[in-house]
C-alpha cells in the first residue's frame, strides 16, 4: 500500500441540465499523502464543492475513481461509503451543521458514539477543552455564537480520529477576527493529530497556509502549487 491517503484519478462529473449535459469537473487527477494539507480555491461555480463531495465519497463521479484510505469509492455502495466516512473522514462545514437537538458535548460525542467508542464523553470533553469551550458543554447550538458553533464542529470533526478532514469554507460564515481564530485552531489540530486536510475556500490567506493549493476554473484545474 502506498503512502497516499487520498487519490483521485481522471475525476469527472457531468450533470443533466436544461441545455443538455453540463460538465462540472473535467478529468481531474490528484494525490495526497498523510499529513498533507490541500486548499481548493476558485470562484463560485468553479466546481470546488463538487470536488470536495466526490473526494469525501458524498457523491459519485461520472467518470474516474477516488481511493480514500485504501478504499476505491467507485466500487462501493452508498452504505459502504458511509462506513468509510465513519472510519476515516471528518467534516467541517460553512454552516456548522450541528444537530440542534444535541448539546455541544453531545454533538462532539456523536461520531464516537456511532462508532461505539467506550470513552466518548471523556474524549469529547477533552476536545471541547482544546477548543476552549469547556464552559459551554451543556449549551445547545442555538445558545452559541457562530464562532463557538464552528469550534464545536471542529472538535466533532477530530473526535473520531479521522485520517482525512474535509473543510468546506470553514470561515465563510464568520467575521475576519473569528475566522482567523478558527483557521488557527484548524491548522493547530491538524498538525497535532497528523490529519490530512482538504479545504475549500475563497480566502486566499487561509489557502496559503496549506502546503498544496489547486485553483479551479470551470471545472478544470488551472494551478497546482506545492
Amino acid at each position: 500500500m502506498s503512502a497516499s491517503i487520498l487519490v483521485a484519478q481522471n475525476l469527472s462529473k457531468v450533470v443533466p441540465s436544461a441545455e443538455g449535459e453540463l460538465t462540472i469537473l473535467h478529468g481531474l487527477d490528484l494525490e495526497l499523502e498523510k499529513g498533507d494539507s490541500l486548499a481548493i480555491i476558485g470562484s463560485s461555480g468553479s466546481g470546488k464543492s463538487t470536488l470536495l463531495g466526490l473526494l469525501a465519497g458524498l457523491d459519485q463521479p461520472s467518470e474516474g475513481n477516488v481511493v480514500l484510505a485504501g478504499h476505491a469509492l467507485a466500487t462501493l455502495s452508498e452504505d459502504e461509503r458511509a462506513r468509510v466516512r465513519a472510519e476515516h473522514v471528518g467534516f467541517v462545514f460553512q454552516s456548522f451543521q450541528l444537530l440542534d437537538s444535541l448539546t455541544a458535548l453531545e454533538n462532539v460525542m456523536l461520531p464516537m458514539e456511532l462508532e461505539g467508542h467506550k470513552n466518548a464523553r471523556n474524549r469529547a470533553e477533552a476536545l471541547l477543552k482544546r477548543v476552549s469551550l469547556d464552559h459551554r458543554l451543556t449549551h445547545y447550538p442555538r445558545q452559541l455564537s457562530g464562532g463557538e458553533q464552528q469550534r464545536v464542529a471542529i472538535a466533532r470533526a477530530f473526535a473520531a480520529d479521522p485520517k482525512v478532514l474535509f473543510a468546506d469554507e470553514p470561515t465563510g460564515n464568520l467575521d475576519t477576527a473569528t475566522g482567523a481564530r478558527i483557521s488557527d485552531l484548524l491548522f493547530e489540530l491538524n498538525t497535532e493529530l497528523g490529519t490530512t486536510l482538504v479545504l475549500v475556500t475563497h480566502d486566499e490567506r487561509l489557502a496559503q497556509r496549506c502546503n498544496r493549493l489547486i485553483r479551479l476554473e470551470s471545472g478544470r484545474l488551472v494551478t497546482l502549487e506545492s
Partner: protein
Amino acid sequence: MTRIPFSRLWHLASRQLMREVRAGELRVLFFALVIAVASSCAIGYFTARLNEAMVLRATEFLGGDLALRGTSAAHQKQIEAGLAQGLKHAQTVEFSSVIAGEQAIQLSSIKAVGESYPLRGQLKSTLSSQGSETVGGLPVPGEAWVEARLLPALDLKVGDTIDVGRKTLRITRILTYEPDRAGDFYSLTPRVLMNIADLPATEVIQPGSRVRYRDLWSGGADQLERYRASLEGSLDVNQRIEDPRDGNRQLGSALDRAQRYLGLASLAAVLLAGVAVAMSANRFAIKRFDASALLRCLGLSRREALILYSLQLAMLGLVASAIGVLLGWLAQFLLFHLMAGLLPATIPSGGLFPAFAGMGTGLVALAGFALPPLAALGRVPPLRVLRSDLLPVPPRSWVVYGTALLALGLIMWRLSLDLKLTLALLGGGLIATIVLGGLMLLGLKGLRSMLASAPLAWRLGLGQLLRHPLAAAGQALAFGLILLAMALIALLRGEILDRWQEQLPPDSPNYFALNILPAERDAFAAQINQLSPNAKPLYPIVQGRLVLINDEPASDVVESESRGDRATRRDLSLTWSDMLPSGNVITAGQWWDATSAHDLPGVSVEAELAKSLKVGIGDHLSFNIAGRVIEAQVSSLRTVDWNNFQPNFFMIFQPGTFTDVPVTYLTSFYIPPGNDRAMVELARHFPAATLLPIDAILEQLRSILGQVTIAVEFVLLFVLAAGMTVLFAGLQSTLDERIRQGALLRALGSERQLLIRTRRVEFALLGATSGLLAALGCEIITALLYRLVFDMPWQPHPWLLLLPLIGAAMIAAAGLIGTRRALTVSPLRILREG
C-alpha cells in the same frame, strides 16, 4: 443487519426525541395522535361495554329460555303442552295504566307476574332509595314494587298505597332491576310490578284492551326444542315465539344505529387527526433533512438513518397512544354518565381489547400518514451537507395517498365493521373533498381579484392563503364541516320539538284517552265534555291484524323492512266512522255515504301505507280480529295529518263492518293547565281507561333528546379538537416561511401591527369561509329535513350568519397564537440565517 447496534440507535433516538419534545417541536403530531386514539378508544369502549352488557343478559333477557308472546292470553292447551314437556312456566301480563296519587296522575307501565317469575335472572329491589339492594323475591298479593321515579311524580313513599284500576296496592319495595327489561333499555313510563293474582280485581283488562301477555318457559334444551316445534304449528297471528337470540337481535339493531353514529363521529375525528398527523409528520421529516444528511455524512447508513427516525416516531406514537387510551377510557365514563337512564345501570368493564384497538388505530394512522414522509428521510443524499438545495426524491404520490387511504380504510373498517359503508365513505369523502375543495379554491382566487386594490394587510393576508391554496381549502373545509355538525345539532335539538309544538293551535289536545270501555263510553264522553268544550269524538277501536291482501299472505306482498311489512307484523288499531275525520283528505276513491253498498264493506286506507302495501282502490284486504277473519274492499285512500294530536287511523272501516268483536274507545281532548284535580278524579272514576298526558311525554322526549345530543356533542368535541390539530399542523408547516416573511417585512420597515393585521385578515378570512360553508350547509340540510322528513314549514335561521363571525373569531385567535413566533423573532437573526 445494521452496523451500529440497535441499542445505540435507540439511545440516540430517545435523546433526540426528549430534546425535541422539550422544545415543543412535536406538540401537534403528539396531540393529533392523542386525539385519534382517545376518540376511537372512547367509542370502542362504549361499544364493547354495551355489547358485553347485551351478551351477559342474553339469557336473562326474556326472564326465561323461551317466551310465548301475544296480545291475547295463551290458550290453555298451549300451556298444557309446555307443562307436559316438564318445562317450568311463569306468566306476565303488561299494560299501561294511570296511577292516581292525591294530587297528580302518572301513566305507568304495569306488569303483573306469576309466582315463579322470573325463570332466569332475579329481581333486585331496595326498601328506600338509598337502601342496599336485595336480590330475589317478588310482590305478594296486595303489594306493589315500583320504580323509584314513580314516587316523586306522585309524592309517594314506600308504605303508601296506590290504586291500579279498582285494586288498592301497598308499595312495599323500590324495584331496581328487572332481568327481562334489559331490552327496553329505556321506557318512558315508570314500572309498577304487582302479583298476577291481583289482576282480576283491578278490572283494568277488558276485552279489546291493549295488553301484552308473555308465557315464560325454562328447562332442558331438548324439551324446549320439542315444545317450540309443537307451538309453531298452533300460533295465532298475534302470537310470537321469542328466544334469547331473537331478543338480542332486536336489541342489537336498536343499538346498532347509535353505535354506528358514534362510530362515524369518532371516524371523523380519526380522519381529521390523520390529516394533522400527515401534515406534522411531513414537517417532522423536512425539518430533519439536514440532520439526516449530516448523520449520513458521519457514517450512518440509509437504513440506520431510517431506523433512527422511525424509532423516534414509534416512541412518540406509543406514548401518545397510551395517553390517548387513558383519555378515551375516561371519556367513555363521561359518555355513559351523560346517557345515564337511557342505558342499563350495571355494565361490564369492556376488557382490554378496546384499549389495544385504540392504540392500534393510533399506530396505524401514524404508519399510514407518517411513513411516506419518513421514507423520504432515508433518501436524503449526504451531499446535502454541501448543497442545501438537494432534496430527497419524493415518494411517488400513489404511494403516499395509497398508504394513507389504506390506513384510513383499515381504521374505518374497524370502527364501522362494514366494508360497504367504508368504501362508500372513502369514495364519497374523496369526491366531496375534491368538489368542495375545488369550489373553495375558485372562491379564494375570486377574492384575489376583488381585493386587488385593498389595503396592504388584506393583500398580504390573502396572498398567504393563496400561496397554499390546497391547504387553505382543506382547512376551511374541515372547519366548515365541524361548525356545520355542531350548528346542526344545536339547531335540531332546540328547534324541532319547539317548532312542532308552536305550529299546533293553542287548544290542541293535550291528553289521549284510550281503553275506554263500551259501558263507560257515554259517561266518559259526558265528563270530558264538561272539562273540555272541543273534545274530539270517541272512536271505537278494534285490534286486528292484516293477514291477506287479495287473498295472498300479506307478508308475501310487502317488501321486508318496509312500512307495510311492519304494519303487517303487529296488531293495528282499526276503527269505523261515517264521517271523514278532520285533518284527513281523500286522495283517491270516495268516502262512503248512506247509499254506498257493495258486496264487501269498504275500508279507507292511509295513502302512504297503501303505497307500501301495494294496494289500490278495489283491492281486497282480510283482517284477523280476535280469531275471526273479516274481509273488506279498499274504497278510498286518505292523507292524514299525524301532527294534530287527534286520534288518527291507518284503516277506517265502513260502519257495520264489525259485529260481536271486543271494542274499546279512544279520544283526545284539551284540558287547560291547572286542572290536575279533575284529571285525578277522571282517572279514579274510569280506572280501566288509560290517560296519556302528551305534554309530559313530549317533555320526556325532549329530555331524552337532550341527553342524546349532549352525548353526541361530547363526541363532536373530539372532532373539534382534531380539527384544531389540523389547523395547528397547517400553521406549523408554514411557520418557517412566515417567520422569514415577517422578518423581511420588519427589516423593510413594517411595524409589528401590520404583521398582526395581516395574520388577522388571513385567519379571519379562513374562519369566515368555514363559517359561511357551515351556515349554507346547515340551511340546506335543515330545509331538506323539514320538508322531506318532518313535514314542517322551513324558515331561514338568521342567527346562522353568526357562524362566519364565530369561525373568523375562533380561527383568527388560534392562528395568531399558532404563529406568534413569527412576530417575536429578531429580523436580524432570521436574515443572517438566510
